[in-house]
């Protein structure tokens, strides 16, 4: 049974405007195995599984499910044929109960009037959740659950149908240890029932724990498949990155300069009592689970969200938080590359030119009258500087690949006089070539004296680039690690993010006291 093939993929190809996301991938999934797919951000893992789940149509190649040609028209069709996916992003109905969410679209009905049988639905849901060891009442509203609990409800929902193949796309990125253990138990249980599972993850040690086979992808291509039992971690990393880590992250560390940003007990909707500081010439990373409050923190610093308490100092001067806005933040020298490139970073239906000049108009045209030649010049300079691959600055940005789109966003901010750059997941959905260019830009910014904040869920990236890494858990800073400490490792940072560092505290001196990397206490500490 272990070696029977469930799903076979032959020469699968998928293109998006300007980029080949999945290129000529052939692989197979066996019955009753846990198959792990790994790769860096933008390697094409998610695109590949989304094609299996019917979310994307394939542009080339064939898929065979149990020997029959498999061509799902949509998610529903895929589900009918026994392929189900648990998404990376939650899509739950917030104002409905857990049971209503689990059984949406297939509510049990009774009687000649086909009334919805709420009792039966709640009972079935309770049985399902109990069977999975999830301690949630079926009648609870989903909005009252934590993000991790919602993720588990999603898992329950996916499992409640008959599946031949269950795809989990980074299911653990928002889970705490307790839920991760539970998820692994469920995974093993499903496996013993003969369900095949595809599991996408960034976290290496998870793979070893539950995987049977591991497939590595890089730049949209298939690199290789190995049995989990006989592969070394170092070999996997080499397969993933395709070269040694050092030469991707070409980081030149500088002596940190004056303090650029400092927060004191900063509190907002999803974070509280955050004390951080960032100096000129530094790249400061933020690690943590999805939903730990990292994005909300930087959005409050940038003025996009309202902070509720605490203080923020920029170059030693306090920012008036009650009167803070993106506009003021930009005038004071901040720049933010948002994690949602398409909804917050770009005007997707506008030209490259219009996108690049959007943030520098106030500087360049103080009297309010626009000069077209200045705009053109600025845009052309930005395109040249960042090597955006395009034939014209008039091209609409939705025609560009993810990497080039991100470069347009960065070009927008380089056209302003910013001194503090906030990068939120800057390499998500970007091919490796563009990625190393973006790393290069970040390094150059730091070298030239700008302060850089970088949020990333890719720990390798943080380890390769950051001077220091703050780890957040449940909205609070749970630790700080400098690149000069010997605990600057994936395992330690992960443990801080998941457990709050309790399990491993004895290994490290209290991170907050790590003296060597504090900024030079320069003259402009006036407000402090």
């Amino acid at each position, binding site marked *: 049974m272990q070696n029977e093939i469930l799903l076979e993929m032959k020469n699968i190809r998928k293109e998006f405007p300007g980029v080949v996301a999945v290129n000529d991938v052939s692989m197979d999934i066996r019955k009753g195995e846990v198959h792990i797919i790994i790769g860096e951000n933008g390697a094409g893992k998610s695109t590949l599984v989304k094609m299996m789940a019917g979310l994307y149509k394939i542009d080339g190649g064939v898929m065979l499910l149990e020997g029959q040609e498999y061509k799902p028209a949509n*998610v*529903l069709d895929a*589900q009918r044929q026994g392929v189900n996916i648990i998404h990376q992003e939650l*899509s*739950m*109905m*917030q*104002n*409905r109960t857990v049971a*209503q*969410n689990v059984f*949406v*679209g*297939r*509510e049990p*009905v009774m009687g000649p*009037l*086909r*009334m*919805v049988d*709420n009792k039966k639905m709640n009972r079935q849901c309770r049985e399902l959740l109990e069977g999975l060891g999830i301690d949630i009442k079926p*009648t609870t509203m989903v*909005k*009252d*659950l*934590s*993000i991790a609990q919602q993720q588990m409800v999603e898992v329950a*929902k996916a499992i409640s149908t008959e599946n031949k193949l269950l795809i989990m796309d980074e299911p653990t990125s928002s889970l705490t240890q307790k839920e991760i253990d539970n998820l692994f138990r469920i995974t093993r249980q499903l496996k013993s029932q003969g369900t095949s599972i595809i599991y996408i993850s960034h976290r290496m040690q998870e793979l070893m724990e539950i995987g049977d086979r591991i497939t590595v992808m890089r730049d949209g291509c298939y690199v290789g498949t190995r049995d989990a039992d006989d592969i070394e971690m170092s070999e996997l990393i080499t397969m993933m990155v395709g070269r040694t880590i050092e030469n991707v992250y070409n980081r030149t560390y500088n002596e940190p300069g004056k303090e650029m940003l400092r927060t004191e007990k900063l509190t907002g*909707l*999803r974070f*509280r009592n955050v004390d951080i500081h960032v100096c000129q010439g530094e790249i400061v990373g933020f690690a943590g689970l999805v939903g730990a*409050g990292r994005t909300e923190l930087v959005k409050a610093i940038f003025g996009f969200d309202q902070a509720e308490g605490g203080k923020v100092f920029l170059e030693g001067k306090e920012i008036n938080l009650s009167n803070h806005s993106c506009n003021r933040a930009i005038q004071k020298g901040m720049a933010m590359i948002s994690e949602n490139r398409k909804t917050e970073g770009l005007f997707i239906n506008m030209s490259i030119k219009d996108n690049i000049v959007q943030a520098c108009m106030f500087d360049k045209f103080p009297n309010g009258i626009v000069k077209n030649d200045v705009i053109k010049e600025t845009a052309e300079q930005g395109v040249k500087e960042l090597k955006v691959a395009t034939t014209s600055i008039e091209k609409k940005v939705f025609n560009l690949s993810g990497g080039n789109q991100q470069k347009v966003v960065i070009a927008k901010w380089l056209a302003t006089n910013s001194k503090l750059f906030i990068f939120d997941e800057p390499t998500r959905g970007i091919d490796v070539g563009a990625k190393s260019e973006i790393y290069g830009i970040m390094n150059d910014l730091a070298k030239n004296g700008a302060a850089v904040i970088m949020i990333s869920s890719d720990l390798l990236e943080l380890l390769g680039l950051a001077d220091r890494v703050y780890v957040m858990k*449940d*909205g609070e800073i749970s630790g700080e690690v400098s690149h000069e400490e010997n605990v600057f490792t994936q395992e330690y940072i992960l443990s801080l993010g998941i457990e709050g560092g309790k399990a491993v505290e004895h290994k490290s001196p209290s991170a907050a006291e790590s003296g060597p990397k504090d900024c030079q206490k320069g003259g402009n500490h006036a407000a402090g």
Partner: protein
Amino acid sequence: MQQVKEKLKNIPGLIWGVLVIILVFIFFAKGFTKYQNILNILSNTAILLIISCGMTMAILSKEIDISIGGVMSFAGLGGALFITRFENPGIPAIILTFAIGTGIGLCFGLFNGVLIGKYKYNYWLITFATMSIGYGAAQVINGGNVVSGFPKAFRNVADSKFLGIPTVVWVALVIVMIMLFITYKTRFGMHIYAVGDSEQCASQSGINVKKTRILIYMLAGMLSGFGGVLLVAKTNSAGPVAASGYEWNAIAATIIGGTSFEGGKGGLAGTIIGALVMSMIINGLQLMGFSNYWQQVYKGAFILLIIVVDVISRRKKKKAALRRVYKYDEC
């Protein structure tokens, strides 16, 4: 029992503010509490409630149908022109009259539903356009004239009494019961909520979102058409702008009843109260002797006010919910 509690929770604090207004009416509006006036309020509520059912479904699905007034006017006039052909209409003719009105509503609803549900055109714009088409068509079919003086048998559907209560109220009761059943007890009802709460989730869970939306607009259209004919029977006149403003009363009734523009939240149970409140307010303003003009100003201001209150309270609740997810309340 749990569900009843949930539904009660969904009735917002707005109701308390409204109660104050009603108290003012009780003390200052002459004859507000008289038996005859209460019957009057009830029969005014009846028609508003019927069309509010459609509006509630539309708003639950995170959209809106403002074609209601136009559809009502056109359907009412269509039915009126039919029934006036009879000196002494029998029951079949009366049923046919209502069927014509409902059918006209159905056509409009189908048109809205297909364009909005299937082809995803902007719902504001499409229902706004059909509203205009409805009013325009009502002008066209009778040259802009008002029809009045209908056979007694037809008027009796709305304008007589059964057990001391106007028949129009009984008619509305039957329809509301059916609609309550549909929205709370059927799969389709569940799907209205699902589509309004998260369209993405609904479609990924196998709900036919297009079909659901088309059905919502069809039902809303049918209810408006039926309500239009009922309005003719009740007022004994049918004019091209007879139902002008009903869409906004229906929106107000829905929002007062706790269904919010956020979609997927609230329900018909609240709308019943909302419609009653709306009728009381209109009635109270009349009794307090405000001219039609002032009533219009107050009504506009009032609708704006409740919508603003709804939006602001929703924003607060959302923040509180976010915080709850992060368990900050415990700290």
